[in-house]
């Protein structure tokens, strides 16, 4: 009961009427307010329906890129050299492991896992970093590249590790490892910089790897393929729930290389323990049959990121395995330049095939005391062009070069590809160095001296060529001037096609001589290099069932003083001369042109020649040369 009695009497009828009036007002307000909600609903659901329907669709549907499988690479005989292999990763999805996890519990779990699959400290650190950064339903990779044994061991104990699974992903693998690293190259994880340089970054949105070197990089556009699209339904956390529709990716094209892995192996083996390079070219097409740079390294280590330690070891290796000698190695061509010098002299009319000179022990420029020595102490006596090539007479070419002058030499050698990148379909090709008056003035700031020209005459001085250029130039003599762009890929199998479609050889501007007979003069001389007893490579050709046209060369690494004598026994190995050899065979119908550089190998004929012979034998005869003749036979060191 109320604490204080009413002071006035209540009037029930009046109060009731008052209440009804108020209730009526309230009811009206209620109806109005509900109508307001209805109006709001009508505005959202009818007036702005299209707008919200679109936004709802945008919310739930996401377009996801599906990476295309990368094209495979085969050698010319169909031997796989770059393949996609499933590699096993151990992944953990935190949301499926448990809710109340902390660092200590995660570590305990990793410890338990380590009983079966070792998880190194570095991977643990990465796991903890990713765990804090990623959403709990996103899987985190605990280990890459599980071995079959590890996969099997984990499979047995998987029941004890909910949320941990072995996942197979396609990864690039190079079964020939080092044999293809300097030609095919390798892929690696896409870097931020590469991503920005892409013309069509959306095509890579699902891809993790990109060609980093070699054919893998040069033919990236062919190999990569086109990313597919998936319209997937996602929830608010971005987790994919189901695929609504799909546009499948278009796989990358498969490539058929011009390389012959058998030949490649023969060349590598023939080089033995030496560092150096071998390039073999099919003269009629430009097909690169072998491309060897030794030492090699394993490209597979680079695919998923090489450890800093292993990379440092490669970088600091004194033999520089990362250096692609075949394409980027710049060597003084030495006497291998002489056939080209001879052609130049004939073309310019500075010499004739018959013209002879007296070649003494040295050459002297007029009004100069500087002696340019011949390798043969007593000199060669009376020589013509033919004899000068066969015996590799230096004095003849000192004289010839001096008379032609550097400008004319530059222009003529340039037509063979010296001083230019030939445009091989790989990366890292060097243009070498074809010196000229203007080059020296620009690069060195010093005028060209006649003595510089004299040195160029025997392939020394400023002239530098790559093994690829030497092989290509040899092939140009073999084809009597026809030139082709050297290529590593000869056929392409595009997606959807079952056949490899051969690519047409790409001609380069040919070398045209005044009189084609000059070609024969030089080829005959090169044949006699291996055929004649006094040829510098007589040992290379004497038991060959086919004729070899060749030229030996020796490149000085260590500059000798004018009167010093080269004595290998007194010099460190790294200061020994490089041995060079160019050849093509059979001389009448050339199938293969070879350039060999054996670093610090000494004499071209004895160190580089056998390598070229092995390569030519394997290619032409399908077998290796018979074991070398016993060392008892006295051989005069010839250059």
């Amino acid at each position, binding site marked *: *009961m*109320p604490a204080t*009695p*009413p*002071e*006035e*009497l*209540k*009037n*029930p009828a009046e*109060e*009731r009427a*008052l*209440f*009804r009036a*108020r*209730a009526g007002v*309230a*009811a009206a307000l*209620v*109806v109005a*307010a*509900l109508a*307001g*909600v*209805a109006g*709001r*609903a*009508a505005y*959202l*659901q*009818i007036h*702005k*329906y299209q*707008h*919200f*329907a679109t*936004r*709802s*669709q945008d*919310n*739930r549907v996401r377009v996801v890129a599906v990476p295309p499988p990368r094209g495979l690479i085969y050698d010319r005989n169909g031997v796989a050299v770059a393949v996609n292999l499933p590699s096993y990763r151990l992944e953990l999805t935190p949301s499926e492991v448990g809710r109340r996890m902390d660092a200590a519990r995660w570590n305990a779990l990793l410890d338990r896992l380590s009983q079966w699959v070792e998880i190194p400290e570095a991977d643990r650190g990465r796991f903890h970093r990713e765990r804090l950064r990623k959403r709990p339903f996103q899987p985190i990779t605990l280990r890459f590249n599980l071995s079959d044994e590890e996969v099997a061991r984990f499979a047995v104990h998987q029941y004890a590790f909910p949320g941990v699974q072995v996942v197979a992903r396609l990864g690039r693998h190079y079964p020939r490892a080092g044999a293809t690293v300097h030609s095919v190259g390798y892929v690696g994880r896409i870097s931020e910089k590469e991503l920005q340089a892409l013309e069509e970054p959306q095509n890579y949105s699902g891809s993790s790897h990109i060609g980093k070197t070699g054919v893998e990089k040069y033919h990236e556009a062919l190999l990569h393929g086109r990313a597919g699209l998936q319209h997937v*339904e*996602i*929830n*608010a*956390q971005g987790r994919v*729930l189901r695929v609504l529709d799909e546009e499948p990716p278009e796989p990358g094209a498969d490539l058929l290389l011009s390389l012959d892995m058998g030949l490649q192996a023969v060349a590598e083996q023939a080089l033995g323990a030496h560092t150096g390079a071998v390039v073999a070219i099919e003269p009629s097409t430009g097909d690169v049959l072998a491309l060897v740079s030794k030492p090699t390294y394993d490209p597979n280590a680079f695919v998923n990121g090489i450890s800093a330690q292993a990379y440092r070891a490669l970088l600091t290796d004194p033999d520089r395995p990362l250096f692609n000698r075949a394409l980027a190695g710049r060597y003084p061509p030495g006497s291998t330049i002489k056939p080209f010098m001879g052609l130049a002299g004939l073309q310019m009319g500075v010499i004739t095939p018959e013209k002879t000179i007296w070649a003494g022990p040295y050459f002297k420029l007029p009004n100069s005391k500087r002696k340019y020595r011949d390798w043969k102490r007593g000199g060669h006596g009376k020589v013509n062009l033919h004899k000068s090539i066969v015996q590799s007479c230096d004095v003849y070419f000192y004289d010839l070069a001096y008379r032609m002058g550097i400008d004319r030499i530059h222009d003529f050698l340039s037509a063979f590809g010296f001083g230019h990148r030939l445009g091989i379909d790989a990366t890292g090709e060097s243009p070498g160095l074809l010196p000229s008056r203007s080059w020296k003035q620009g690069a060195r700031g010093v005028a060209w001296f006649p003595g510089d020209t004299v040195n160029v005459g025997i392939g020394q001085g400023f002239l530098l060529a790559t093994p690829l250029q030497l092989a290509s130039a040899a092939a140009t003599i073999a084809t009597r001037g026809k030139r082709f762009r050297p290529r590593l890929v000869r056929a392409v199998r595009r997606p959807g096609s079952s056949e490899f479609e051969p690519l047409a050889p790409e001609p380069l501007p040919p070398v045209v001589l005044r009189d084609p007979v000059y070609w024969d003069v030089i080829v005959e001389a090169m044949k006699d290099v291996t055929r004649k007893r006094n040829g510098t490579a007589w040992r290379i050709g004497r038991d060959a069932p086919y004729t070899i046209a060749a030229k030996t060369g020796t490149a000085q690494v260590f500059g000798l003083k004018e009167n010093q004598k080269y004595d290998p026994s007194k010099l460190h190995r790294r200061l020994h001369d490089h041995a060079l050899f160019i050849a093509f065979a059979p001389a009448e119908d050339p199938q293969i042109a070879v350039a060999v550089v054996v670093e610090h190998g000494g004499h071209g004929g004895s160190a580089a020649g056998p390598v070229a012979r092995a390569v030519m034998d394997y290619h032409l005869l399908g077998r290796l040369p018979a074991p070398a003749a016993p060392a008892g036979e006295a051989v005069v060191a010839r250059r």
Partner: protein
Amino acid sequence: MRPFEQALHHGVENPLLRVARLDWPLFVAVLLVAGLGLLVLYSASGGDLGLVKRQSLRLLLGLGLLLAVAQVPADRLRLWSPWIYSAGLLLLVWVDVAGVIGKGAQRWLDLGVIRFQPSEIMKLGVPMMVAWYFADRPLPPRLRELAVAALMVVVPAALIARQPDLGTAVLVGAAGVFVIFLAGVGWRLIAALGALGLGAAPVLWHFMHDYQRRRVLTLLDPESDPMGAGYHIIQSEIAIGSGGLYGKGWTNGTQSQLDFLPERSTDFIFAVFGEEFGFLGVLALLVLYGFIVLRGLYIATQAQDTYARLLAGALSLSFFVYCFVNMGMVSGILPVVGVPLPLISYGGTSMVTLMTAFGMLMSIHSHRRLLAR
């Protein structure tokens, strides 16, 4: 005799009604909404039958409570009113002093076995108390009585606002204010208070917490912070809007099924409803809610004493306010406050309060004396 009085007589004749003391139209409407609620809840929870089962159990318990309260004559409720109010007030003070921190605010009282919110009691306690105060006084009330009534409302509302739980404070305050309004306070006073309220808005703004200010600002421009404060309201508008006229169909709402909609089985369940059942579904729900409120007001007009009248009216209008505040918030015309959608949102606390209130309405309707006092 008027038609409703005839119906009344029939009602009393009905033995079942006499035993259960139920108002069938109201009861059926409540059951309809609650049933619809379970259906939506099943969809909103992503097909979690366990959750639906738990809610069904609460609904059953709530109906039991409704039935029990319906048996208590309104006169007895009136006698209990000051005691319930005082107990609620004491508990609020206790919470203020010793309440445990829950969700960043002191709302819960830990009784060892159960934790509950004393503010929930005041949703019923305040209107009961004010109705009790006006029951034997002549109406419309005079200024002094109004002041006393206002104090009865403001003290608990202020205590709740201090927790801080502005949403509940407003609801509790509203329940009390409805009693005062229905008691017949003069229109001029109402207008004056309204003006005062508008003038006090900046002062109120000054005393608001940051999160409360943010909610108001977010209402004005949700897109200003789409991933933060605006996220709830943007997603719920997308859900409702994309439902269109007919809706996406039960359990087919992408906004709700794919987790874009936050709190979709509790405060934002109206958005699930709008998305899956469309504008037509929303209209149907509004009609049901409107029917319940109007039926409650009708019961109030039929009540025979001041206490019953005021209480029934205030409870009906409170129910309306719960509906309106929730739907207004979810559809983006009111700021975000944590108010569940009556009879549909998942949760037990509001179910207890609501069912008790409906029980009181039924009791008021079924315990009328046939002769006016």
